[in-house]
């Protein structure tokens, strides 16, 4: 279980859940914590969330499968969300999406072979002024051009390389 969430954090969440009257309100919080730590929420993560909050896995799964930003399947180290809503679409979002698919060599919902990037479409990111926009992790980028996308990906790659080598 420690792979999903450090024991210390589990204890902290359990303590908090025990304090509050409605532990269900923490479902999204705990799922997001697991996701932040583990990258995505496997079945064991749903069970762990249920255990932390003292509720049934079904109740957690109902929530986890509803929200699109809870990943119930493995994703790469960085999730690239490219906006496909109207503002980005009207300013060339589709071309950027095509460019991303070509550059990364993957389709929507897929992860690059090196396990670094997962590409997903998303609804409006609230960056309509900077359309077309995308979000990598929790950072929003825009307005995008093909060159800019390449630069951002390169930057992310470099950062990932740093953290990985740092860990080793």
């Amino acid at each position: 279980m420690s792979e999903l969430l450090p024991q210390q954090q589990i204890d902290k969440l359990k303590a908090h859940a025990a304090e509050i009257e409605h532990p269900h309100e923490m479902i999204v919080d705990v799922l997001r914590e697991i996701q932040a730590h583990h990258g995505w929420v496997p079945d064991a993560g749903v069970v762990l969330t249920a255990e932390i909050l003292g509720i049934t896995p079904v109740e957690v799964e109902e929530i986890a499968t509803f929200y699109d930003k809870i990943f119930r399947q493995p994703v790469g180290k960085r999730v690239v969300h490219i906006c496909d809503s109207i503002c980005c679409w009207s300013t060339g979002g589709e071309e950027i999406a095509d460019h991303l698919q070509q550059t990364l060599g993957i389709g929507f919902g897929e992860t690059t072979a090196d396990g670094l990037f997962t590409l997903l479409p998303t609804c409006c990111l609230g960056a309509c002024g900077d359309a077309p926009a995308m979000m990598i992790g929790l950072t929003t980028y825009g307005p995008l051009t093909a060159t800019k996308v390449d630069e951002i990906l390169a930057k992310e790659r470099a950062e990932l390389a740093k953290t990985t080598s740092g860990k080793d």
Partner: protein
Amino acid sequence: MPKLIIDNREVTVPEGTNVLEAAQALDIVIPHFCYHEALGAVGSCRLCAMNFLEGPVEGLQMACMIKAEDGMVVSTVDEEAVELRSHVIEWAMTNHPHDCPVCDEGGECQLQDMTVAGGHSRRRFHGPKQTYINQELGPFIQQEKNRCITCYRCIRTYRDYCGGTDFGTFGSRNRICFGRFQDGRLESPFSGNLVDACPTGVFTNKVFRFKSRVWDLQEAPSICPHCSLGCSTIPGGRYRELQRVKPGINRETNGFFICDRGRFGYDHVNHPERPRQARLDGQQATVDAALTAAAQRVRQMVEQHGPDSVAFVGSARTSLEAGALLAEWAKRTGSPHLLFETHRERDRAARILVDRLGDRACSLAELQQSDLLLLIGTDLIAEGPMAALAVRQAVRAGAQVVVIDPRPIDLPCSCTHLPVGPERLPVFLDTLVTRKTEALTDAERNPLQALLEQLDAAKTPALLGGADLLGSRGISRLLDAAVALDNNERPVRVVGLLGGANSYGGALLTRSPRDFDTLVDDIQEGAIKALVCLESDPYRECFDPARAQAALGRLELLVSFDCTPNLAAQRADIFLPSRPVAEMAGSFINNEGRLQAFEQVIEPGISIRETSSGDHPPREFSLETPGALPRPAWQMLAQVLDLPGDLPAIRQQIATADERFDALTSLTADETGPRITDPVVLPDTAPDELPQCVPGETLPLLPVQGFAGSDWLAHLSAPLQPLEGEPTIWLHCDLAVRLGLAEQDQARLTTPLGHCHVTVRTSARMADNLVLVPHLWGTALEGLVPGGRHIDCRLEKEVNL
């Protein structure tokens, strides 16, 4: 009472009725999916559109979401409403597969009915259809997710109404699906209701899968024989095989649903070892010959040894008609020995309850209205599952539930549970009567004090107790408590969970102050030489099987009428094959005194499936249906008594002889049934106090009922076998630690009856210093009959080599 006009017709409906129901009161049926009388309305399907022309609400509205109010003028045939309804159906059908030919819902598919009623016929959407991967949901429920129209009825039935916790709604938008988190058996004891709740074939009955089309089924209204609640059922059979049971609608008892024991416990009717042949002294005989012999030998016995030498023992599954004729037989012989329950405590408890229940009787519908429910000494899931569901509905309406019981009670709702040993139950009941708390321990005093206050404040309190664990003294004290807790504003209602479907009727008919335990003494001493068993098994279904079996060997004559392969049937000198509920008409009186009739569903006989030679039914002609000899017990008894053998005549006879059963003559199987309350012949003085066990070298063992394995008829039903499980014992976690045992350990249980191997289960929610053992037919545990008393036992951990 609001008065409104629907389609130019005026209707007055009770306060709180919605407009859809008001239209139904006028026999205007508007298609709907999410609305269900038991589940209420949520307005998600958007199908029941009506146009509100005048009144407080105007415009096109969903009728199920609008409460009927004075002055409303509503049109159901309005063009806009009709158009919307057909569109909603069209949308609902967007992804529905065209697999009706292979779908088991066929013939009772509400989606099909609503599609036709809604006016949608030609498909305009030609896009691709959504598909889903199905889940494996255990032995009872088959899932076909592709058929789902997302009406949310399943989740509202399974989780909201029935309190199941392992079923959910996943995904969003048009990709919603319903199921379990992971594959596995649906754990709720009410899971079968998914089949009825689903308007189409997403959830179908796996046991009934592909067996028959529902239009080919022989069906008739019936009563569930598996507990004392008397739920209404509609069994269905084909080719001489009983194939399924679905709930009947009785708004006073079960409402719209039934439990899985009632739904899947029907298979005893088809049991391969069911005795179908009459026997006389070990030889096959005709029923007529065996009946003549039975009448003659009983008469001889009376002539030779006096009327005291014959005893008549019915059972809780004996129909009222057969019971009354057995009583008539006993009366004619002059025998004073007539009982309807071989289990001493269940017998005595039933008689005391019936004698004193009176207006305190509480139907399940009334139970749902209670605001405080005290469950003392009863495990509803085992003894009357649908009562647990009624308790849940009360809780959903805001009621409080307090449970005082040694078992780790699993109710489908929240409750306050005081896990105390069975020996404390009488003390608690005494405290409720006397309000004196001296006999309580410090830890018990506060909760009981609080409970007393709650009971005083409650507006519609109800006490529920089980005959098994409380026994005659307990039930008696429970009724005393109800009297003591009455106040000027309201009575306290009482629900007693009795031994079987007709325990109440049997108690009304019992004419002896003695119980079976004392009859066993007489048999042992040779005073009783003949025993007539009517669908009862005194060898095993009594309080002390070992003692009974030793004594019964001395009988000179044993006559048995039965439809199950029990010991009495096997050992009888004269055996007469009777019919189970589904194969005859008759009536039962449930635990609240409600007289309910059932009709015959199928004719007896060995099913075509068994008599066929593989790829087709037999091609030989035969004058007789194989295995069709069994007759209704009342018919055979009427023959013994030289009475006419048809049911109306028998009912007339019974009603004439006993005015309590007046209603029998006009009773039909589809009505809610009248209540019968009457004083009965009470048992003589109370037996000795149940022995108290002192924890020491041996442990006190308490046999209790389980959900599936301890009901004899359910045990004979193959579909329920998966629920019976292995022999198990339950221990409090602390006791388990002291004994060096852990969850799922294998242990050797030693009782005076012998050894057996059991799996250890632990719980923190049960009484300490106690070993609970769920009674399990067909295992070494079958001799451990539940009955509110301790047996000494030893437990040793078994080490797997």
